[in-house]
């Protein structure tokens, strides 16, 4: 896989929180009837994770499933396996009205971690990031300043953040600015 390079190519910055390129991640957009048993088991097979509830992400060992909309999931799988997982998924869904497509290269995937992570994200997204309002397992599509993005919280309190690849650099710089060491808000 030497030819493939993530948009941010390993960039990282440590300030109030650490902002880092989380590297290449296999991603599959799956649209279909989320109540379908066939779809559910295909998703489980591809990711090892069960169906997430509305606005949530369900995480397994090396896969995850995020709820994107009432008829759309985002499957996270190892980058190298995306093609095979997609093929298996398409085979399993052959009789269903569904659309599965590889979007692994369409996105930039970042990790925001450390004590200041909530505050840093709260500077760029109009979302309540109070621990009482946003915790591990929640998945939110919203706005990162001027671009669309989505984020979720891992069990360790860090955030996974995804945005379109073309604006990956913008989002990295945005988070870096928000993580300026002397810009602590001090509420979370």
């Amino acid at each position, binding site marked *: 896989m030497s030819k493939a390079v993530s948009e941010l190519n390993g960039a990282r910055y440590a300030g109030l929180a650490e902002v880092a390129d989380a590297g290449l991640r296999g991603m599959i957009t799956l649209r*279909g009837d989320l109540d379908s048993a066939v779809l559910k088991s295909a998703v489980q097979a591809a990711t090892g994770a069960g169906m997430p509830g509305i606005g949530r992400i369900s995480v397994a060992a090396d896969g995850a499933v995020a709820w994107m909309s009432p008829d759309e999931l985002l499957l996270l799988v190892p980058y190298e396996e995306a093609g095979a997982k997609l093929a298996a998924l398409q085979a399993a869904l052959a009789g269903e009205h569904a*659309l599965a497509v590889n*979007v692994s290269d369409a996105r930039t995937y970042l990790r925001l971690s450390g004590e200041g992570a909530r505050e840093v994200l709260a500077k760029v*997204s109009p979302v*309540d990031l109070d621990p009482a309002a946003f915790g591990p397992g929640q998945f939110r599509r919203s706005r990162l*300043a*001027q671009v669309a993005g989505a984020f979720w919280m891992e069990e360790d309190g860090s955030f996974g953040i995804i945005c379109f690849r*073309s604006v990956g650099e913008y989002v990295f*710089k945005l988070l870096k600015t928000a993580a*300026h060491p002397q810009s602590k808000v001090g509420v979370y």
Partner: protein
Amino acid sequence: MSTRLAKHGRLIDRSKQIDFTFNGKTMKGYAGDTLASALLANGQVMMGRSFKYHRPRGVVASGAEEPNALMQLGTGDRYEPNQRATTTELFSGLQAQSQNHWPSLEFDVLSINNKLSRFLTAGFYYKMFIHPRPLWKHVYEPIIRKSAGLGAAPDAELKDADTYEHFYFFADVLVIGGGVAGLQAAKAAAASGAKVLVLEQNSYWGGRAPVDGGTIDGEAPEAWIEKTLAELRAMDNVTLRDRCMGSGVYDHGYALGYERLTDHAPGQGGPRHRLWRIRASQIVTATGAIERPLSFAGNDVPGVMLAGAMRDYVVNWGVKPGERVVVATNNDDAYRTALVLHDAGVEVVRVVDTRETGGGALMEAVREKGIRVELGRAIAKVKDGKSVTEVAICAQNGEGGAREIVQADAVAMSGGWSPVVHLWSHCGGKLIWDEVTASFRPDPERPPLGDKGQGFVVPAGAANGEFGLAALLEDAAVAGAKAAEAAGFPATTVAAAKGESVAEAQMEAVWLMPAKADVKLRMKSWLDYQNDVKVSDVQLAAREGYESVEHTKRYTTLGMATDQGKLSNINGLAILADSLNAEIPQVGTTTFRPPYHPISLGAIAGEARGEIFQPIRKTPMYDWHDRNGADWEPVGQWRRPFAYLRDGEDRHAAVNREVKNTRENLGLLDASTLGKLIVKGPDAGKFLDMMYTNMMSTLKIGKCRYGLMCSENGFLMDDGVVARIDEDTWLCHTTTGGAEHIHGWMEEWLQTEWWDWKVYVANVTEQYAQIAVVGPNARKVLEKLNAQAGGGMDVSREALPFMEWRDGQIGGFDARAYRISFSGELSYEIAVAASEGQAFWDALMEAGKEFGVMPYGTETLHILRAEKGFIMIGDETDGTVIPQDLGLNWALSKKKEDYLGKRAQQRSHMVDPDRWQLVGLETVDGSVLPDGAYAVGEGVNANGQRNMIGRVTSTYHSATLGRGIAMGLVKHGPKRMGEVIEFPGTDGKTYKAKIVDPVFYDKEGEKQNV
């Protein structure tokens, strides 16, 4: 003269002396001073010149309501004009300059305007400058620009050196104001468990209470404030922010907080201001009250101050305003100032009380100190000058005949207190007139309404018209509890702290001092200091027929700009009401608009500056382009290379080179920005037949078709090549700017009109790097790559014919190749995974060397397509053009009953044979037609203008043909082939062009089909 006192000054730290400069002169202050208090401590009473008349002005207030003491602060990239001295905390090295004067504060040439004031009345500009017109630009405007305005604008070439940020925060209850009412309300709200955010604009908590005295729970207010703050700080559900002003209240509980992080400590690092973007279920406005000036002649002479402000300067900052002070009042509160002054060793020459019956216990206390109190009296006039010297005293109920003239160097005035209703009013909260305090207060029956129709703002304390410690604390406790309950928390009762303060006698509404002041006095009685509006101006406006308060505001400028009526509102309304013989409530107030107090543009912009001013979308090969001479062109938020400049080349030379090379050898175009949408499902064909004017359902698997999309108005909105991937899957290319829009457009129809159709759409634009490999050597380079990789996709004419696509490997890369051409050359558009885009591009560049490979940019793309007569969305179309105008009837399916835009294209105007139609244009002399030029025909229109018969839509120098070529829309164009028409240019020349076929190059299309 004002000086520093040896005692008092609860907010200053006398052990920390600070040097600062004012107009270049070094002065000393203490930590905790504001710029205003420090200037007064240095004897600097005069702090600026007024807006219109350039009258000397001193500080009037002690807080955000200050209209006069506006300063230019800092230098260079940290310079900022119009900053209030009263809200500027002193720091070491602060550099302040007074403004609106030339050459100096002491001697200002334009103070001549003061002498001309009788000519500069309300509406002066409207009346004066209507005629004659030519004078406006060359005479009036330069003079006005020189004389009006506040501070000087920052240097346009300098960038603000500071940074700013936003912060989104959600609260159940937002309390605006950290005075005793705000703290009490916060305590009550927090007791219910609600998440509470408290904002205080100052660096200190407690508001006016420590200055005004009284006791809370039997202690001095300061003790209660400290105790309450400690309690609130200990609560997990409470956030306290000082130096953070609640600046505006907006729809559905949205509010802005303006936090000043480093204004008081520059060089500390980090953002200067933070804009809190708050969403609150309920908002408590505990914003206190502002004292009203009295309208007497000379009420703007430096040294005339609000009585409460004068008290603040003594108590908070240990500054006395003068040696001999006259206090003028219509209420008991100003007597507190007399007592404080007396205690500080200042001689209180007179207390002039308009009330015939005088005041209560506070007046008695003043008299006990031996201070002379005159009842039923008024100030007739303060003698004009740069400071107070003489005060003429008269009967309030007279015309101003002086009974007595006293020597004094400062005047304290109090016209009563008005609740700060701004934040209550920002989002529609209504007001009622309170006779007792002669002020508007929030009408509890008509609050601003939230998303459920519920009131979402609760006023508390003085902001609710409750004065007196006991009443305001009780009111605040109720307000806090009410807000928490309304936010969904269980009702709790927190006993209000018990406040005790001296009972006060009834105030008297005084709108003009003296009541029958003659016109000469009224012309010197200021209502709005900041905008230089006098009593006589409002009266004149009323005489000229201005009855609406909103009209009067605009005509006279009363309460406009940064003042927002803080000092001027009630006094101005009262004068207007009196002039109209109406009651004040009938006249009503003007609209209070956010921000409450000016906030920096930097705070509004937040982080959006420099590199992240706006998102710039980059393709996977962006960095390569940048390293290889890309002259960037913005295409929406994308950046695309316009051309790749080589050493010594200008744009034109680079473009000509790229065009020729692509036609003759091999060109590479980064086409990754083109939108790519997957459309899949049993009804996908039917759906695409509705989306496109063409028939897409019949497209064979493995083939491509160029398609047009129209809006329901029939106008062209997008185009692109559609590929049939499998039985129920299509891939639709859109224009560069169209990906998100067309994706949204498809979703809109699927979700809101044909929701029973089984179709899914996914936007995969950014999944791929797409590279157009173009030119006679295109196939050779791909075959070479495949040979190097030991095999790959067969790209021969037979295996991959024109307008077909194949999946496979090229040069070892997983790729999808489309045989499509937007240039007229042999062309492959090849999509690979975005993450491998750069590697694939590198491989093409390396393998292409022997075939003369060169990258080309968007300008070459345009020229190549124009030479072929291909239209470009946004050039040939502008939202008023239908496919029929462009000779694209072949792309309009006749078989389909319906498609988006079909019905509209049958409307009478759309089938008008006079519609302008696409033709090619060739200048007679080979020059390039000006872009957008119009062609003129015979005769004139109803307005006497020459009739227009067409316009240029695309125009280029064709390197291939060595001449200018263009496309345009011309009336009856296709029927006028060979005719020469005229295009007057904006350069004064007239260009002649022959109407020709729009396909200039390879009319048979042989080159792309090899």
